[in-house]
């Protein structure tokens, strides 16, 4: 569930650096409709919906972390028309498409999502607990993406990052 924005207009940072679990419907309600549906939020959400729809159609168990200016109550985007949602999608390996070319197509789509969906999206393969390659997933998430997701939202005036909470989106 997405908590209320704090006095800075940001989600409070979670004590353990966890993302706030939510659904796409909650995101639409809290980050688009409740904030007056400004055009930039409507457009970014439409792109997110398109990307998640495509990924979930092939890997229904995929889950996401989202952070950045969109995950705040900022009335204006930081980078104007160039604003994107920043995300990483975590793809459980046991649910990857059986046919290799389908998997490649999926990754290709994710990597091009900044242009096609306005979501700057990275990917991480999730090897299950106990798998010999589990550390690959843990390293990517813990050394790279959790740090980025918890680094917060850029202050429009100072351009410095202000620590804030982030979202974990599940189907």
């Amino acid at each position, binding site marked *: 569930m997405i908590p209320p924005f704090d006095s800075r207009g940001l989600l409070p940072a979670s004590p353990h650096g966890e993302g706030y679990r939510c659904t796409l419907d909650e995101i639409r309600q809290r980050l688009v409709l409740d904030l007056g549906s400004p055009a930039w939020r409507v457009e970014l959400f439409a792109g997110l919906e398109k990307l998640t729809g495509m990924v979930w159609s092939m890997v229904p168990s995929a889950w996401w972390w989202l952070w950045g200016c969109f995950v705040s109550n900022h009335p204006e985007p930081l980078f*104007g028309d160039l604003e994107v949602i920043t995300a990483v999608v975590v793809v459980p390996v046991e649910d990857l498409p059986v046919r290799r070319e389908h998997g490649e197509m999926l990754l290709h789509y994710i990597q091009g999502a900044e242009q096609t969906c306005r979501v700057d999206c990275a990917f991480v*393969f999730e090897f299950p607990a106990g798998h010999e390659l589990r*550390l690959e997933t843990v390293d990517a998430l813990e050394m*790279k993406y959790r740090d*980025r997701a918890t680094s917060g939202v*850029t202050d429009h005036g100072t351009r410095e*990052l202000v620590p804030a909470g982030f979202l974990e989106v599940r189907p």
Partner: protein
Amino acid sequence: MKPVRPIEHIRRDLATAGAYRERYLARPSGDPLALMMREANEQEIRVLESELKQATAGELELTLLGPAYESHQVGIPLLTRILGNLQSTFRAVYRSRTPSGSVHREEATLSLVATAPGSFKVVVATPPAQLDLLEPAPLADQAIGEIIRLFVAAEEGQAGAVAPAWAAAQDEPVLKAMIRLSAALAVAQGSTMVRWHGVNTPEQLVRLRKEDAKDLVLALAGQPGREVVQVTGHLELGQDRPPRIRLRTAEDEYSAKVPTELLDRVKELLFGEVQATLIIDMKTSPTTGSPDTDIELIDLSEA
């Protein structure tokens, strides 16, 4: 197109991608999925390094405005003259601000990164600054900043108030380079719009009319006993070593020293009708007290 992000953000992303890389470099793997994640990270590091390089370089845009450029064309001799003088002024100021006085060529070399219509526009970038030298401003920013400050003074009609004090504090090569640059802009038709965006400095815009540039030349050269003249005449070789030219006008004949950076232009225009800008220094011999005149060519173009 990606937005220009603050340098700190790029560095943070590089740090996290680097931390992840350190982990997997210690653990070879042949698994195709693991390799795919690692390759994506390597690719991202390459992109971030390139983004950082761009973010640590200032950008200077020069737009030549006026009827002469309305067809979005400019003569190569004029363009090379302006850019060449900009480069040599930048290098001279940069070198003079370097504590050791020694500068690697690439660290003070501007790059041409774009041209565009409008009326005719060029964009040059300063070399990327070292990350630990970004505060308060990289040397390249400071050097261009000094040039821009003089342009701003000229645009505001304050060349006479600002330039002499600046000139008095400079070494001779810096001063002459700045005079040459101003002289090149003074012969451009119309005016020159300059937009400067340094790494750590807010954007500045200056519109320098040719009259402003001419005022700047005069103000920079305005020391007692020094005069800047523009003459039109026939160019001849005066002496080979050290190089001197002879310039015959309808009324006078001048013999002037030629700085190394103008040698190629002299060769190109030799025996033709030219317009030359000369600095004339009137000196008195400290031992004999006899007067002497020293003339140096600072700019040359086809008449």
